[in-house]
């Protein structure tokens, strides 16, 4: 059984969308595609991306990759290991200081602790602004302020972490159960005691877990802060790339990956030990 052309036409007028996209929709699609292609061509032209450049670059990259094998620690392997240790130390110190400083700031930023709206609001906006600045920018600024070396890196990690950690801590405090604190207050405890015995035990595991997550992520970022002069393994890798010792560069990259993996395992083990397998998702 087949439909007569008239019936098909009737159905087409009744359910136009069942017969594929309408003409206007198709035109819109074409226009969108053309605009996309035009944007793509424009940006290729803007950034001077040509097949020849890509080809030459790929050939150069292949040469670099070939020179990377086999990875080789080189003569100054002691410096490389010291740089890696420095990076881990920077990450540890930065996370520790930031998470300690963030505890009082978190309490100040929590709605259920501080009722002075203006103070809390301005504190939170300040943190928002600080969070928008990348860690590398902080590192570069501190290198100008206190000179080359790992101190600038530690300060950069503290500055960029403190804003995020304070916000996370404040949110944890706001989400804490109010009843234990009320109980302490009803039994005659002061406000400070209510915070210490009513709220702190609830939020401490969350704070610990967040601090450990930040230690993990800071190990990754501390490895590259040295590129702008803030100490650690980044300085070593940047120097070796400058003099094109590619086998040593490959060795450093492998060392970075292994170290980051080891820190992740260690921090995961500590986290499970301290707070059990509770679900505390990272950001």
């Amino acid at each position: 059984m087949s439909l007569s052309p008239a019936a098909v036409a009737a159905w087409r007028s009744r359910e136009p969308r069942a017969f594929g996209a309408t003409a206007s929709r198709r035109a819109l699609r074409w226009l969108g595609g053309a605009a996309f292609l035009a944007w793509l061509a424009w940006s290729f032209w803007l950034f001077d991306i040509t097949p020849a450049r890509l080809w030459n670059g790929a050939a150069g990259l292949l040469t670099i990759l070939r020179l990377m094998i086999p990875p080789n620690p080189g003569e100054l392997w002691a410096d490389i290991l010291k740089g890696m240790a420095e990076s881990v130390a920077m990450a540890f110190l930065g996370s520790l200081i930031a998470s300690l400083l963030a505890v009082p700031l978190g309490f100040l930023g929590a709605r259920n602790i501080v009722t002075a709206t203006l103070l809390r609001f301005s504190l939170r906006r300040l943190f928002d602004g600080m969070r928008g600045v990348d860690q590398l920018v902080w590192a570069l600024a501190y290198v100008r302020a206190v000179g080359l070396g790992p101190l600038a890196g530690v300060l950069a990690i503290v500055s960029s972490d403190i804003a995020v950690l304070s916000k996370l801590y404040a949110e944890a405090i706001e989400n804490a159960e109010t009843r234990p604190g009320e109980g302490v207050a009803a039994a005659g405890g002061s406000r400070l005691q209510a915070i210490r015995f009513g709220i702190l035990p609830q939020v401490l595991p969350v704070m610990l877990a967040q601090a450990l997550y930040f230690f993990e992520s800071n190990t990754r970022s501390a490895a590259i802060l040295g590129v702008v002069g803030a100490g650690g393994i980044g300085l070593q890798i940047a120097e070796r790339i400058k003099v094109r010792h590619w086998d040593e560069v490959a060795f450093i990259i492998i060392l970075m990956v292994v170290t980051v993996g080891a820190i992740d395992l260690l921090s995961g083990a500590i986290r499970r030990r301290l707070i059990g397998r509770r679900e505390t998702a990272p950001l």
Partner: protein
Amino acid sequence: MDSMAAHLPAVRRGEAAYQALRRQRRLTGLTGFAILAAAFLGAAWMSEFYPSSLAAGLPRIGEYFHRILPTLHWSTLFAGVEAEGSLAFWFYRLDSWLLLLLQTAQMAALATLGGAAVALLLAFPAARNLAPSRWLHHLTRRGLEATRTVPEIVSALIFVWAFGVGPLAGILAIGLHTAGALGKLFSEVMENAPMQAWDGLRASGANWAQACRYAILPQVAPNLLSYALLRFEINLRSATVIGFVGAGGIGQELYQVIAFNYYEEISAIVVLVILAVMLIDLLSEKLRHRLTHAAGAR
């Protein structure tokens, strides 16, 4: 009453167990604290975080950040470029900075696009339920891992050697990292997709590529797009600093004004970057919400 209860053996045992537990807890607490203190001292020694250097550095930090802050006067706040203390004086090179910001956003967009395209192609073989063979699955997985473990700045440093100074190196570095990160996320989304459509298509004779295209892609497309948009936000942040190593964008300009101590320009550029990042975040969040609603409605 209390003294009588204290002589009962059960109470005494309970008391002893309580004291033992307390002692043990105090011991673990002290050991933990000692380990933490030792690690702190070791890290401080390693990273030259001495009280003396800190004491010498802190005033200089205060001075530095004080200098970075612009000097604005209420009386001339909205005056022209010539008036010292006006907003226009602070942002006196606004036009060229906006152009650089646009270039940075373009870099992030191109890198996200390229990275997402590569990730999409590699995600199908990397998904456990779709991979045509086991070794291909492992090969793509390990390949994606390798691209995402190298930090963007490091690959940018290497690409600057291979492709020359300029935005191309930055785009490729960010794109490479994006491909690795998105490839993992994409393949995980695909692993969670219902397989009925796939089974049906394969049973009716579709080949592997056709089944991927018509059975899996329509199910996961909104999710993938939403991940790609999220990645665009991240890439915009990376693109603003990738210029520190000569890989284009506003980072190159920021590096120069910091290196040459053009104090007020530093704060001006940083403010612009923060505003741009916030704007893109807002737009992208709106788009993502619409995408997830569209996906939920079906």
